[in-house]
């Protein structure tokens, strides 16, 4: 599925490494180094290098097709599902190279929760949805399951709304509730990193506000990487922001600085709405 391929590296642009200094948290959780990715013959990511700080919220922004989702999905190897995918470079989680041959993808994914663009609860009860990651690990003890489910639902600010109907189908929840359920499912296994791929794009403003509050609450406990189309959202929820354009990382730094005082011309054009 994933084959490492030696390809001549495209020349690095002048300011590519210059602006890549982010606000320091308690060390880096994910280190992405010279990461390239090809869908078949088409290259989607070019020499991305950035460190995602532990315990902070990092936003990936950029116009459609810039590769921000691809980069995010490379972090837990969700891209493995795609035929004809090639990567070069490295991504490491706490020093472990996730693209190494010896890495167990399943174990890796258990260390990273992921929330998708569209809420994707499973066709099961709310309870079963939340504890799905535990079920597949073979946890049977009812008391542990109940306790963990409650903790995760509280963590996802959904407990009060669903505590009386845990056995009802998750498909009966509203879109916002479904997305928070997916967040609960993502954090139930206590992962180190939470990956969010435009988690609010299918939600109304009120549900979006709730999810943003939730992201604030979760920051600190988890390292969060969030892809968003919405620059206000990135400004509101993240401490660090990376701006990508055409598969290249253009600028990466503290959110406030990136939005108020962008160094690269492309970044300033994008955040002022000149394109995108």
């Amino acid at each position, binding site marked *: 599925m994933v084959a490492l391929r030696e390809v001549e590296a495209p020349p690095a642009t002048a300011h590519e490494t210059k602006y890549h200094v982010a606000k320091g948290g308690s060390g880096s959780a994910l280190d992405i180094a010279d990461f390239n990715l090809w869908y078949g013959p088409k290259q989607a990511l070019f020499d991305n290098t950035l460190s995602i700080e532990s315990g902070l919220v990092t936003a990936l922004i950029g116009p459609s097709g810039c590769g921000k989702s691809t980069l995010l999905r490379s972090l837990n190897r969700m891209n493995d599902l795609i035929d004809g995918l090639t990567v070069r470079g490295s991504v490491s989680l706490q020093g472990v190279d996730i693209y190494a041959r010896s890495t167990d993808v399943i174990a890796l994914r258990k260390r990273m*929760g992921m929330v*998708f663009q569209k809420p994707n609860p499973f066709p099961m009860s709310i309870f079963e949805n939340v504890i799905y990651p535990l079920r597949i690990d073979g946890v049977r003890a009812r008391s542990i399951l109940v306790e963990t489910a409650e903790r995760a639902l509280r963590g996802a600010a959904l407990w009060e709304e669903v505590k009386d109907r845990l056995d009802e189908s998750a498909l009966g929840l509203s879109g916002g509730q479904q997305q928070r359920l997916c967040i609960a499912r*993502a954090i139930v296994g206590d992962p180190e990193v939470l990956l969010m791929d435009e988690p609010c794009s299918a939600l109304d403003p009120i549900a979006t506000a709730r999810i943003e509050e939730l992201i604030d609450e979760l920051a600190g406990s988890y390292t969060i990487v969030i892809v968003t189309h919405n620059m206000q959202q990135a400004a509101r929820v993240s401490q660090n922001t990376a701006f990508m354009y055409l598969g290249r990382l253009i600028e990466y730094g503290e959110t406030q600085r990136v939005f108020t005082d962008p160094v690269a011309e492309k970044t300033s054009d994008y955040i002022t709405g000149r394109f995108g």
Partner: protein
Amino acid sequence: MTAITAHEGKAMAGAPARLRRQGVDISARGEPFLWGLGGALAFGVVMILGFLFIVFWNGATTFWPGPIDLVTLTAGERIAGEPTRSEDYRPTTSQLAELDDATRARIAARDGFATRTLYRVGNFDIYGEDFRWVSDFQVSRREQPADLALVERLEWGVFIGQIKAVTVDDKAVETATFATAHKVARQRWLRIADIERDEIGAVNHRMEQGRLEVRRAELDHGKSSPAYARIAAEVAKREQSLGIDYAKLSAEAQRLRAEAARTRLTLAEIGGKEKTIPLSAVVRLYPANALGPMDKLGVYLSRWWEFLSDEPREANTEGGVWPAIFGTFAMTLLMVIVVAPFGVITALYLREYARQGRLVTIVRISVNNLAGVPSIVYGAFGLGFFAYILGGSIDQFFYPERLPSPTFGTGGLLWSSLTLALLTVPVVIVATEEALAAVPRSMREGSLACGASKWQTILNIVLPRAMPGIMTGLILAMARGAGEVAPLMLVGVVKLAPELPIDGIFPYVHLERSFMHLGFHIYDVGFQSRNSEAGKPMVFVTTMLLIALIATMNASAIVIRNRLKRKFVGSQF
């Protein structure tokens, strides 16, 4: 509309010619085509409804007791029978020549047509025919006397005539006690059938078992070994006690038979010829012209009950079809049990695991093509491969003592089910593949992102979600399989098999037995029986039953599917 006037043409000189015509072309309007499409649909629906109506009308009315007409012909002859149907026909010149002028003139006025009625006269043992055409111009009088009765007998079909007497040991008894006498006689007859089939059958079975044990010992140890001698002696002892049981049972049957023969019913046909039969040979007897609506309903329901619960009689044209219902049901169920895992596993591999390339495409095309192979080809394959090769080997290894008579080495329920499973597996594969492909990618990704392996994702998320689609495939397979007849004729369906594949004799389920099938029963009754006119109503009733059986099985599968759908698919916000 598109014409450009000279004036305009001059004005537009040099400008590019207008490419699009103005106005709307007929081909852009949907309505005429809509009418065509709707018409085609309506035509299809009318055909299906018409088909169902004909089958159900004929099927539902078959068992309703009709009146018996007593027809006096101009020639003086008297005929009693149930009118079956009427039609217009053109009498031949020789027939016309025998008629008087007035009648001839009437026929001529109708362009040479006359009307005739088909009467079911019964009494095949006396007349040599069951049905008789009577032309209207032959009839001088029609009446429906109350004393005419219709008697359904175990042999020779129905008798139509008068009841003369009920006698016990040649002494006449009150005909008022007929009903009770008949009930007793029928119960006695059922008891005889019980003894002769089930109890003596069980004894015979155990005797056969003993013989096979001896044969087995001979094959295993040789005829001169001590083991053989021991088993032979044991079996001989058992056989002796079985012989006593057998004698007892057959004596009991003899006694009952003798007793049954004492009560006799004397009947007279309309011409006066008398016929005496044992009362126990009468299945049903009713005075056709003296029945009230409730009596008729009673006869109707009792006939239906007999049809659904009894075994066939009289070369399948009378009696019931219970063994055929059971056989059809058992075979279809077994087929689904076999085809479901095979089809689903194949589709899972093709869709989820196999590398999508040229090979998989070829496999997929071949599977689709298999669905179009004529079913009789599967029958020939089933006979050659399942029955002769597989079954023959099973006989060699597990039932050598029964050879040369085959156990699994001939057609049977198991081989029929497997053959039909093979026939329907493409349908299941195609449907399952589509159901799997329709599972949203987001579901799989959600599960994988939780750290589930591919197999866990398939088991926990993909399969439950695809289940309604898989069920649809199974329903289609079931409908096709239950209605299939041609291959079954080669691999296990027979004209008459009163022994059901499940009974009280160890090992209770006998998958090697041949069985009856409603589809084949229709063919057999309609086209292989002595009298097609007598078989025709049974064809309709059996067809109706087959349709009802398939509809019931499909309906239950659909109910299950919808339940699954509600559970696993739901509505996405």
